[in-house]
């Protein structure tokens, strides 16, 4: 049973990845967007790096985690988009009617999303290198990749959960808005200490803040458990919670 689940999941994961190659117009934006975010944000707000509190550090380096995490977010959203399309188009019925365990419907795309985040993270790191900011050593770089992949898993669970509940492509904007808000209502543009008012409160409460901070720490002070710990805890919390949400939607499939 488990062996079959693994093979079918693998098969679905491969299919998701193949779709990227065959429908570039749909998926290409999701690959280019993270690099765009890096360039546009660092370019527009680069002056921030010059303030005394940040001791003239590189704002480009500061923005890298934003781009890599958003890249994971896009990959997760795509998993949800594909699932919504498949449900609406009837492909999912075929899978449900097959002997494969249902959980593969989620596992497959989830694996694909994590795999895709590896690509986007690489693209962002490459672009940052062009701008003079290089990957921060083996440990630090690994942390950056892992955080992005974990976020991809979490957003994939969210987006697929939405797809399973609504079973319609009309819910795609909802998937997108929630993911964008979760990233931008955290520490997207400045460190937490410099935020004011409601935004500071939101960032304090937002798990994604820890994910970004864990990634960002590698660029500045270096990776340490004080940031890595909360980052991993937050990711786990999100993945477990949203994973349950997605599984609940899975159970309802075919029953309505």
């Amino acid at each position, binding site marked *: 049973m488990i062996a079959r689940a693994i093979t079918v999941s693998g098969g679905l994961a491969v299919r998701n990845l193949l779709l990227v190659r065959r429908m570039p117009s749909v998926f290409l934006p999701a690959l280019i967007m993270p690099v765009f975010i890096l360039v546009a944000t660092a370019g527009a707000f680069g*002056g*921030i790096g*010059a303030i005394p509190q940040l001791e003239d550090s590189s704002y480009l380096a500061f923005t890298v985690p934003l781009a890599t995490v958003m890249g994971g977010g896009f990959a997760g959203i795509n998993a949800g988009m594909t699932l919504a399309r498949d449900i609406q188009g009837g492909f999912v019925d075929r899978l449900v009617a097959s002997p494969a365990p249902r959980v593969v419907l989620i596992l497959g795309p989830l694996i694909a999303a994590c795999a895709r985040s590896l690509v986007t993270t690489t693209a962002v790191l490459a672009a940052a290198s062009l701008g003079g900011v290089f990957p921060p050593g083996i440990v630090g770089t690994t942390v950056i990749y892992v955080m992005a992949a974990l976020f991809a898993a979490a957003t994939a669970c969210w987006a697929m959960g939405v797809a399973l509940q609504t079973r319609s492509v009309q819910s795609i904007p909802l998937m997108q808005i929630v993911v964008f808000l979760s990233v931008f209502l955290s520490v997207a543009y*400045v460190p937490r200490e410099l935020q004011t008012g409601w*935004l500071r409160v939101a960032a304090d409460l937002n798990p994604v803040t820890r994910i970004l901070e864990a990634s960002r720490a590698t660029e500045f002070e270096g990776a340490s458990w004080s940031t890595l710990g909360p980052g991993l805890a937050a990711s786990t919390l999100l993945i477990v919670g949203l994973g349950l949400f997605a599984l609940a939607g899975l159970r309802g499939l075919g029953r309505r």
Partner: protein
Amino acid sequence: MSNRLAVRQTGALARRSVLDTLRLPQAWFPSIFFPLTLMAIFTGSFTETFSRVPGFPDVPSFLDFAVAGAIVQGILIGGTSAGAAFATDIEGGFFDRLVASPVSRAAILLGRLGGSVALGVGQAVLFIGIAVLFGARVEGGVAGFVLVLVLAAVFAVAVGGLGVYLALRTGSSEAVQGTFPLFFALMFFSSAFFPRETMDGWFRTIADLNPISYLVEGMRDLIIVGVEPRPTLISFGVALALAGAAVGASALAFRRRLGDG
């Protein structure tokens, strides 16, 4: 065709454009939600820091600085909706009905643009109102406020015209919607969100060449400085040039489509 009738027709079609937009949340929600949300996030992020950034103009609060960018962004998003709606008219046949009726050709075009203007100005009023509610001040006073609205109106014509041009050329609302990300990107490569003076390198060059920079700066100065002739005239010039080009292009595309049916 009497001019009075043409005006009446334009008004009726403008009214229809506005009603259609307001009745479809997907049409107006993005143009309100995104700019305001970003404005709030930027304010929360940069209030503490902006005064320390070298090259940043002297403003009482970041909110004052950000409103203009939000207005221009909102109009840009709204313009794509207008174009998509026009394309839907073409797809659905309502456009044909208008063409086959004794409606002045100009009214068909200007009606849609009039709707864009009404929505753009309404949006500007809303955004400034919200900003003022949160403590911002319009240094240019009533005159400045009015000038901002006029600038918004002209820009709305430009963006609406571009949307209509795309609709006439592609006849597909999906294609028009597809250009939305492009414009979103354009806004970042300008001084819409942060001053050009703080940028450097090739990014600064792009921002210097981007007409949106001058548009936003003109509007922004009316709010944070007051009514100054130079920046105001520059941005009006840019806006009028864009509007003229857009309207001209759509008029040509209109004529072509009528000839080909």
